[in-house]
């Protein structure tokens, strides 16, 4: 500071000394102000991090237990006295494929009519021969769909008849709650979901190691279920979300990038383009539920597309993502120095050549980031999907984007509303963990690609 002030006549020196003093006096308060501001900033970051930490700790502490589930390994005897069915039909000479299919279906129906619950019950009772439980109590600790899984095993391999094999069976949601202590174990019988003998049976199986907490891989491989809540999984919702994201990428990226390139590089600057620009910015701020209403009115009522289909969901989310992609691409294009365009034009390139050969490659990292962030936003969107029927209970993995399906965030909403709170509270958090994991992965890919591409260019 001092060397800035050059030597001056005495009156001047007095004044500059005065100025210097004023600056020195003010210095401490300016430094204090700077420190204060930094402290505010740190406090803000600290608060934000604390909120994120609280959120993560809460979700993880609630959701992680759901990834292990009470599972028992039982010796199942395929008792010929219970399973009385004809041998599985084999293709015969002179039988048309349709006839063979008919015969197979008839046989499968016959197998379905077998009292598989009796098979399950016998297996449970054999596992704990000294416990006195009735049929209902024995079956209340095992998930209700195990009988169908046994049937499916038998359909796949009819040679099992008369054999005994070890089978992993899921414990029922209520047994899982009891063993994990989700329901206060000291509550009286009237407030418990399981009867006292069934609870004792579950405890005994756990003690003897016939029941254990195993990793619940079915959360990823099974579809949603209501009749067998313990076996409910995310596979259907995951595939539904995947289809929607594909539709969004296939539609929103080309349309968005093309509009942005035209508006930024080719469009004449006049009132009309200004109007379009203002509208695009406004669209980005429209609440997502409005797009849902629009989708229901246009795609379902007018174009007669099916309800609850990922295609319609994808179209609605495309509308929602478009402005994001257009705005981000335009700002990436604007960041390209004009000298690049002038050089290309000066060397005789046409405007199209300039844009596609020189400008777009430079903006590629920016466009990619915009796309991935737009897709991540669309992945987490729930509100518009509720209005096009995607909040239905669907117990199948959609084979095509036209099949009925749910989506990951909608599945969270559905599980959150399930009657069996004790079980589904953890399940809901587990689904949130999966969704957050996906989002973080997507964003990490965006950051990785951007840094990599930027370094290359």
């Amino acid at each position, binding site marked *: 500071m001092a060397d800035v002030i050059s030597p001056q006549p005495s009156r001047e020196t007095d004044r500059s000394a005065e100025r210097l003093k004023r600056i020195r006096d003010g210095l401490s308060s300016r430094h204090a102000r700077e420190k204060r501001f930094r402290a505010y900033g740190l406090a803000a970051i600290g608060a934000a991090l604390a909120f994120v930490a609280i959120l993560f700790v809460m979700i993880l502490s609630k959701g992680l237990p759901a990834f292990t589930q009470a599972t028992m390994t039982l010796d199942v005897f395929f008792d010929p006295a219970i399973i009385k069915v004809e041998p599985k039909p084999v293709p015969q000479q002179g039988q048309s494929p349709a006839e063979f299919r008919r015969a197979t279906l008839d046989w499968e129906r016959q197998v379905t009519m077998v009292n598989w619950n009796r098979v399950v019950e016998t297996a449970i009772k054999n596992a704990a021969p000294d416990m006195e439980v009735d049929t209902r109590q024995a079956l209340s600790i095992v998930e209700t769909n195990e009988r169908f899984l046994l049937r499916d095993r038998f359909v796949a391999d009819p040679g099992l008849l008369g054999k005994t094999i070890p089978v992993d069976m899921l414990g029922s949601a209520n047994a899982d709650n009891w063993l994990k202590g989700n329901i206060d174990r000291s509550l009286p019988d009237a407030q418990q979901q399981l009867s006292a003998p069934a609870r004792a049976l579950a405890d005994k199986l756990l003690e003897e190691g016939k029941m254990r907490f195993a990793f619940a891989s079915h959360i990823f491989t099974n579809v949603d279920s209501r009749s067998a809540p313990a076996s409910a999984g995310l596979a259907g919702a995951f595939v539904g979300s995947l289809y929607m994201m594909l539709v969004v990428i296939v539609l929103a990226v080309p349309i968005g990038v093309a509009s942005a390139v035209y508006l930024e590089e080719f469009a004449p600057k006049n009132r009309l383009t200004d109007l379009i620009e203002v509208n695009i910015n406004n669209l980005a701020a429209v609440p997502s539920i409005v797009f849902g209403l629009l989708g229901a009115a246009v795609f379902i009522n007018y*174009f007669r597309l099916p309800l609850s289909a990922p295609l319609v969901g994808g179209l609605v989310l495309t509308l929602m993502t478009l402005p994001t992609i257009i705005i981000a691409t335009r700002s990436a294009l604007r960041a390209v120095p004009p000298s690049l365009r002038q050089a290309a034009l000066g060397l005789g390139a046409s405007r199209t050549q300039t844009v596609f050969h020189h400008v777009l490659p430079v903006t590629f990292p920016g466009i990619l980031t915009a796309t991935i962030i737009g897709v991540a936003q669309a992945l987490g969107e729930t509100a518009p999907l509720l209005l096009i029927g995607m909040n239905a209970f669907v117990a199948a993995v959609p084979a095509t984007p036209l099949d009925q399906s749910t989506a990951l965030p909608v599945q969270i909403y559905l599980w959150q509303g399930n009657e069996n709170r004790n079980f589904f509270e953890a399940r809901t958090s587990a689904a949130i963990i999966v969704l957050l994991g996906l989002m973080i992965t997507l964003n990490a890919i965006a950051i990785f690609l951007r840094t990599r591409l930027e370094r290359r260019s």
Partner: protein
Amino acid sequence: MNKLFLTASAASIAVALSAGASFAQSRDTIQIAGSSTVLPFASIVAEEFGNAFPDFKTPVVGSGGSSGGLRQFCGGVGENTIDIANSSRRIRPAEVEACNAAGVNKILEVQIGYDGIVFATSANQGDFQLQPVHVFKAIAAQVPVDGELVNNTYKNWNEIDPSLPDQAINVAIPASNHGTREVFEEKVLHAGCEEAGMPELDKEALQKACTSLRQDVVVEIAGDYTETLARLQSNPATVGVFGLSFYDQNRDTLKVASVSGVTPSLETIASGEYPVSRPLYFYVKGEHIGTVPGIEEYVEFFLSDQMAGVGGTLEGAGLIPAPAEETAEVLAEFKEGKAIAVADVQ
């Protein structure tokens, strides 16, 4: 790059449009929507149906409340309208008219059993032995005092009746998009209103006085019962209205109140002792039978003994089975294709 990019975008748009245009092949999955009370039962049947009939796909079950479901149901005939509407109340004449206007003329009614509506508090609260008149006096906007209607000023339950706990009045009831609300009004509010000894009023004023609620203590829940449960957890002194099956699944945190001296259970509701119960329905679009495969089989499977019958799967989930003769009659009428007309539901 240039050509590739343009071709790619043109192709993707073409694919999207043709996908929309080519959706002409018939749907092979039954589509169901409606009441959140019926939803768990319908979902269970749908799943078991998919398991038991390998030749049909598992039906898709959506929610949206009885009114929402029937509105979708009456949207018209065709691929993108639902086949079955679940309802926790009977269809209204206006809805039948709307259906007919949209071309849905064959509305087949299927009654599947009964459901009880229970009042419950958090498990650590006092015991409630309610009468309909208690509920009415607690939540009506105006109550009769000495033959005159005055603004309701009751603050605690024990001011209404000394037998009730000394607890602030807070009630969470289903909003009007739920069929449960209608039953609540009919079986609890109107019954309590009559008992309360209303002064002489004309019909319209009486109706209004019976169903106007005070907003300071009543919370109307538009979502499902989980939302009501969350209310009870945030304010334990709340009395919530639930379906019996929901209470059954959460009996560790909820305590149920008796109504008119009867504690709700499968037995007391099936016998008709417990006053607040209602039949549950679903409505089948006759026009879609034969177009969408499996509708007839689904209905038969739903009404079969192993599902809706005594000791069936749905009883375990909280549905109160209808007597076997009643179910047989319902099934017979469905098979005949007896459509509902406005006159039937008035």
